[in-house]
């Protein structure tokens, strides 16, 4: 795979293809790291909500 050859012939599609490969590989790593934090925080907040609603239910009874 020669990136320079891709830019010589039909440069629009060559450049777009290279941009796709570079962007996608970078974003995958970045989103993987940040996304795992999001999951952790999301489950923690849901767990807190679940705990609060159980407390309210036992207070009410």
């Amino acid at each position, binding site marked *: *795979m020669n990136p320079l050859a891709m830019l010589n012939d039909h440069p629009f599609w060559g450049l777009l293809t290279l941009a*796709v490969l570079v962007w996608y590989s970078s974003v995958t790593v970045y*989103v993987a790291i940040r996304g795992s934090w999001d999951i952790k925080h999301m*489950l923690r907040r849901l767990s807190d909500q*679940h705990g609060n609603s159980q407390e309210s239910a036992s207070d009410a009874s």
Partner: protein
Amino acid sequence: MTNFTWIDGSIVGMYLLATMIAGIMVRKYVSRVDHFLVAGREMNVFLGIASLAATEFGIVTCMYTAQAGYTRGFSGSIPGILNALAMFFVGWTGFCVKPLRDSGAITIPELFEQRYGKFVRWLSGVVIVLGGLLNMGVFLRVGGQFLVVCCGMNLKYLEIAMTVLLVGVAVYTIMGGMLSVLVTDFLQFIVMSAGMLVVSVLVLSYVGWDRMVDAVETNYGEGGFNPFVAQDLGWAFVLSNLFTNVASVLTWQTCIARLLAAKDSKTGRRVYTGTAFFFICRWIIPGLWGIAALAMIEPAVVETIGLQFGEKDGSLFAMPFFLAQIVPAGMMGVLVAAMLAADMSTDSSYMLTWGSVIYNDILAPFRRKPWPEKRGILWNRCIVALIGIFLLFWGLWYKLEGNLWEYLQTTGAIYLASMSTLLIACCYWKRANNWGAIAAIIVGAALPVLSLSLNLFVQVPVLDETGAQIVKEGKLVTQGLAKYYVGDNFVNIGTFLATGVAMIVGSLLKPRTSN
């Protein structure tokens, strides 16, 4: 012949097990209906991006975008570029999506009730589910076909492959709803992305950019690079896809579900702008695989594979057949796991999405007072299961004819045209009312349903340049009536325009005093 071995089978098996465990483990966090449907609105930006990207890339996406590359060259990727532009614009400006998210609605029909009344909400729900389920109806079959061709499975195992896929997905979707979907989407995004990138590098190295460009030039000329000069594409193709992609960004329930599950409208819009470029990747990457198949596989071979599945057009199978030849053992397992990841994330999200519309909007009139959370969750689970059963039967019965993307566009248009019109009018036109909304919904559904029915039940013989009927394998080659005389692109454009007119005329006809 394929390179799928026991090593690949083990990789796939381990991946599936990990996904199932993750999906089932989060069910303990589901205690309310809004947890089940929108993950308690606790989704943040990066999880949203991963989930949206994973949902919107399934085996079906891979197949139709690769088919587009195979049959149209680089011009086949235009819908992806238009989708990215539309999504970025909508996310950046907040066009329609800001008022939608700020309203607090869980689904689009719920917003419509505030403006157009209960009946429009219910009718919108019906049309959304009709279009959505017909659209999704081919997912299972196409996914099974990919696995059969890529793994070299015997054709008689197609239905079993379909059923196993569906059951696996249904189990964690039913148990954990949107929470399971988000967590498994995240895992699937990582596996899917890694697999796609590795295979793309392999394809580009194996075939070479020059050979791929030559194949497009030889088969499609300049039209393979510029859709405006392509004989069977042109401005109608671009305009049709512009309408479809703007409408889907605004109202395709799986996209909007991510926005509505976000913490707030700002987060939702950031998910949109952050994911926009992905939609170019979504078309370009498999499109390259399709172009590589065009360069390397004889057309006669492709046709033969199509006939094995009882389908006239074999171009859908060019890409999986090509990958089966070049991807080595070991990497094949990663590819199949990646594709299964893509498919499972799509199927789970779509089942939940259409299920949420059935529960939230179609069944709303039957809930005179709010249901207890447990009953609500149970109903949602049963609806998802029933959708799974429908998919199995539709997938087994319906035989796809011709281009997969055009089938998806037409079935999607059943609701995209009307829902986008209603949403835009709801947000920005004070004069819009329920008369216009009902007219738009009816016109928006009727035209694509009519087109689909005509294509299914009325066949016209296809003629060659001399006017003689074309015969293949001793049978007359035929095409659906609407496709032959009008063309899918013009049906789509006509549907959007007619729906807009119906909204305007219907709204203006209603006397002001009764608004």
